[in-house]
């Protein structure tokens, strides 16, 4: 039985929470606003009492898979446990009910939170300058490439191209295009790393920047990162670290030592703020000293015991967010860091890498790894063997849902056939990893014994496979569309 919509539940005359009655003499809308500016129709919002609204959303919520229920091994998404204290402190009234434009002298607590977070993140990254204005990773990329344009522009030529490896996330080429640069794709070599010879051929005086994900989306550490930096810097290009896979490096390796000019962090991945069904995230961009003047405005500064926002930043690329970024996410990330401390930070990547290698070892006989050897925090399997039995990566993922587990990322990176990209994170126990491996091994046996069972999966989920072609050919995107049939 599908869930009714709010529109279905609406009964004329029902009301939710009420306001206090107006405590001043009413003038009336008609006296305060010109008639032609007042809405004559609708909005047709639902009329539902509070208990029914609560039931509706609770009933919807239980249809979701989520990290508090079971493993969520999406590659490059870092679905780790989100500690509850983070959410609790973010609700504190002094933080949640503060207005962004209240006087700075009455905002010192909020500014101190941001200042302290900056300190932790600069230490972890080994980089000197930072902004937390971007709302998410893609906006960090955009901010950085705009900064690269400004940096090169000051030197007389903004340049024309940005180099992106073929294994990169889609946000990289998309961002480059949005900032008006041409995307130059470099291939990966047989070892899964950037093909250094091809990179040498691709760089030139036209190259504004090179965007690198390290470890890359195959879960392999780009061991030639030093050489890559020399090649980029040799032509005056800037080197960008896409931090999507930072969970493999926290407390273990230092992006600053790798000569990155820019490095971004997704707080909603590495630093455990909840994903919220798609967001909000939190974007952090760390940069080298020479790029500091270009950081988005305003910049947080400290003078003695007082914090202030410095808006007077003539070389800045400008403002990228309505206020100061996703502050509530910054609060959660700092809370997480304080829980971990130096000793906990050192465990994050070590245990994440151990978990990924353990899963890979348990699965390597049944599924073809994209590359042999040890992986970092994630790895990619190819379902090419299963495909020859008539079962695709998509089907394997769907069958996992029947086991109460989430599917890995499928069909990414694009350079691996029938890719299954698996990132368990450090917060899964051995028992949880064993259950996941057992499920995938059982499914592999099913591809031999009963492939139709896998192709028809899932059958134990709230709905079965959905007709995505129908959704796209005749988009029904509102209640009104549903009613129009």
């Amino acid at each position, binding site marked *: 039985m599908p869930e009714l919509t709010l529109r279905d539940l609406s009964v004329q005359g029902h009301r939710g929470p009420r306001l206090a009655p107006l405590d001043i003499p009413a003038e009336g809308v008609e006296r305060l606003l010109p008639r032609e500016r007042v809405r004559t129709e609708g909005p047709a919002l639902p009329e539902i009492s509070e208990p029914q609204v609560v039931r509706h959303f609770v009933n919807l919520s239980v249809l979701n898979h989520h990290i508090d229920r079971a493993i969520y091994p999406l590659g490059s998404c870092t679905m780790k446990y989100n500690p509850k204290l983070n959410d609790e402190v973010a609700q504190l009234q002094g933080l949640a009910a503060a207005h962004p434009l209240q006087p700075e002298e009455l905002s010192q607590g909020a500014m101190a939170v941001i200042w302290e977070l900056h300190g932790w993140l600069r230490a972890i990254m080994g980089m000197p300058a930072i902004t937390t204005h971007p709302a998410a990773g893609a906006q960090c990329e955009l901010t950085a490439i705009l900064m690269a344009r400004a940096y090169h522009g000051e030197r007389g030529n903004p340049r024309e191209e940005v180099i992106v490896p073929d294994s990169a996330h889609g946000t990289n080429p998309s961002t480059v295009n949005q900032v008006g640069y041409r995307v130059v794709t470099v291939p990966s070599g047989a070892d899964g790393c950037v093909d250094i010879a091809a990179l040498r051929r691709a760089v030139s005086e036209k190259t504004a920047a090179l965007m690198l994900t390290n470890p890359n989306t195959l879960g392999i550490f780009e061991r030639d990162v030093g050489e890559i930096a020399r090649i980029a810097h040799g032509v005056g290009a800037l080197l960008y670290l896409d931090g999507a896979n930072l969970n493999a490096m926290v407390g273990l390796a230092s992006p600053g030592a790798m000569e990155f000019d820019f490095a971004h962090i997704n707080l909603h991945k590495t630093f455990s703020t909840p994903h919220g069904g798609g967001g909000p995230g939190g974007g952090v961009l760390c940069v080298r000293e020479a790029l500091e003047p270009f950081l988005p405005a305003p910049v947080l500064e400290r003078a003695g015991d007082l914090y202030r926002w410095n808006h007077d930043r003539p070389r800045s690329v400008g403002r990228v967010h309505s206020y100061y970024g996703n502050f509530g996410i910054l609060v959660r990330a700092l809370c997480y860091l304080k829980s971990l401390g130096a000793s906990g930070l050192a465990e994050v990547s070590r245990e994440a890498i151990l978990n990924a290698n353990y899963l890979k070892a348990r699965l390597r006989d049944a599924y073809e790894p994209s590359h042999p050897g040890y992986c970092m925090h994630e790895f990619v399997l190819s379902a090419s063997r299963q495909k020859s039995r008539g079962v695709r990566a998509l089907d394997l993922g769907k069958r996992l849902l029947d086991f109460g587990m989430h599917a890995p990322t499928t*069909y990414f990176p694009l350079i691996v056939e029938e890719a299954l990209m698996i990132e368990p994170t450090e917060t899964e126990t051995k028992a949880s990893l064993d259950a996941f491996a057992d499920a995938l091994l059982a499914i592999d046996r099913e591809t031999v014994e009963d492939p139709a069972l896998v192709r028809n999966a899932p059958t134990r989920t709230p709905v079965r496979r959905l007709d*995505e*072609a129908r959704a*796209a*050919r005749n988009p029904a995107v509102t209640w009104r569309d549903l009613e129009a049939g």
Partner: protein
Amino acid sequence: MNVPKELRYTKEHEWVRVRGQEAEVGITDYAQGELGDVIFVELPAVGTRVSHMKPLGTIDAVKTVSDLFAPVSGEIVAVNTELKENPALVNQSPYERGWMVRIKMAALAETESLLSADGYEKVLGAIA
């Protein structure tokens, strides 16, 4: 795999039906099978000039996008407007009702570089 003998092909999985000066173009049965359900086909306006093996449009499936390349140079003289309402024709009838554009050819000699049905089948054989 259906590969009609009377058509010519490209390595990018377009087919070409040559009728005098005109080349009718679509994508092959193999291509539509790889793409899956086609949901949208973006084609140029009549009168647009296209060049040999340059993209002339895009084909959106549910989770992938593919370029449509011009097998020959020339001018677009007709587009299949039926695909706007019914893109599934590309899946259901790739060689007939799923045709995409007709190009008035600038250089007939270009058709000689196209593959025969046998040649295209060899391309498919190499993929499998």
